[in-house]
């Protein structure tokens, strides 16, 4: 079943002219019971997209369906969807214990035992009020709500911001274990793919509001390859291919990153002519795909 479907989806903030195009022409399908990573740099449009899916924001162009309905102002979508980020608001007079108690009434699938056990594990003081929590503790508590509510569509927007590294690891493992027991659709946004990569089934990489890449995460490691060696031989091998990244170094040497669709024979032959092949780390690949033209070196070259 398809849970989220977007066709030429767009979102402008402010006036059309002079306003900001946060999402431009995004089309994709997200299937049920997958963990999907929404990856992009700061300002790529991740939060805007998630808020449209959650029904918080109304699209200004194209089509968006969540559980086959338009999500904006829709109670059915709202009942099946949970949006978790660090600015979740709860009634000011509520303690954490109050929130957990109400959440159990609010979400039909809420696992109160799990929520309490997680809160105890992360040493949360349930007598405290939510708006007095530190940034990291707030993230941790919101993440617990996100896991324990077992919502059919759970959206996590940068859920680990402010968490220390040990809490992060525990959170991801808790999410995975709970997902195995209660499969559901989870969208997880992050600007750092390597942190969530192993947890994901699919990845949607966006840049400047548009899609860069949407594929099973397992295919990502084999998507691109680095070629390093004498400029002429590397250039010959890469001819006619889209170059994702280019660096010159030393005398007449070059490093190119291109899509990986060479035959092993072709690579073996290139190796004998001094062309080295380098695997591309997935974080680097995302940077290449979403990067501005050139690199930081160009900034300094001008002076």
């Amino acid at each position, binding site marked *: 079943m398809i849970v989220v479907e977007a066709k030429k989806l767009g979102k402008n903030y402010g006036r059309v002219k002079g306003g900001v195009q946060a999402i431009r022409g995004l089309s994709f399908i997200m299937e049920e019971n*997958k*963990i999907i990573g929404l990856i992009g740099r700061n300002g790529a449009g991740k939060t805007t997209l998630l808020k449209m899916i959650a029904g918080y924001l109304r699209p200004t162009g194209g089509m968006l369906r969540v559980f086959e309905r338009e999500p904006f102002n829709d109670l059915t979508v709202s009942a099946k969807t949970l949006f978790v980020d660090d600015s979740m608001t709860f009634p000011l007079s509520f303690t954490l214990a109050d929130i957990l108690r109400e959440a159990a009434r609010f979400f039909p699938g809420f696992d109160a035992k799990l929520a309490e056990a997680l809160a105890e594990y992360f040493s949360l003081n349930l007598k405290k009020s939510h708006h007095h929590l530190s940034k990291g503790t707030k993230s941790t508590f919101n993440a617990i709500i996100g896991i324990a509510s077992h919502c059919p569509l759970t959206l996590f927007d940068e859920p680990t911001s402010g968490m220390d590294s040990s809490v992060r690891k525990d959170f*991801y*493992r808790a999410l*995975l*274990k709970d997902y*195995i027991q209660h499969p559901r659709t989870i969208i997880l946004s992050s600007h750092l793919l*390597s942190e969530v*990569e*192993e*947890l*994901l*089934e699919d990845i949607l990489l966006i840049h400047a509001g548009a899609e860069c890449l949407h594929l*099973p*995460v*397992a295919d990502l*490691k*084999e998507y691109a390859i680095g070629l390093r060696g004498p400029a002429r031989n590397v250039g010959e091998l890469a001819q006619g291919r889209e170059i994702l990244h280019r660096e010159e170094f030393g005398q007449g040497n070059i490093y190119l990153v291109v899509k990986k669709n060479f035959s092993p024979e072709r690579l073996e032959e290139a190796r*004998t002519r001094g062309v080295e092949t380098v*695997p591309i*780390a997935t974080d680097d690949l995302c940077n290449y795909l979403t990067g501005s033209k050139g690199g930081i070196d160009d900034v300094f070259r001008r002076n």
Partner: protein
Amino acid sequence: MILNPASMKPIYVQISEWLEAEILNGHLPGDERVYSQYQLAEMFNVNPATAAKGLNLLADEEIVYKQRGLGMYVAPEAQDRILAKRKERFVNGLLREVVSEAGRLGIGKEELISLIREIAREGSGERTREEERGKEKGTE
């Protein structure tokens, strides 16, 4: 269980290789049930779909077989198939690479063979018999 995320090998390949090692060292004998994708996902802390991909890799190579509704089981011939596959990969990959690199470095055929023999001698005593056989071939 720790995976190496920095490795060139995709995670699902690393999982299938770990299962192969478990079959080779006898922890998973023939017709024994293999871990499910969910067990593997928990063990390796990865998405169950990634674990399933590792299992399917082994199913494609007939190292494990599917029992409808029950899961995956180790093929009785699994050990032989893994060894044959690895041997083939060793000869066509690593060994060819060694020979062509030796060529690039100007190491002659005889020199290469005696270097290999020397390294094998440094290894464990168990290797001696293979080495003897190698010597006979070398003198032919």
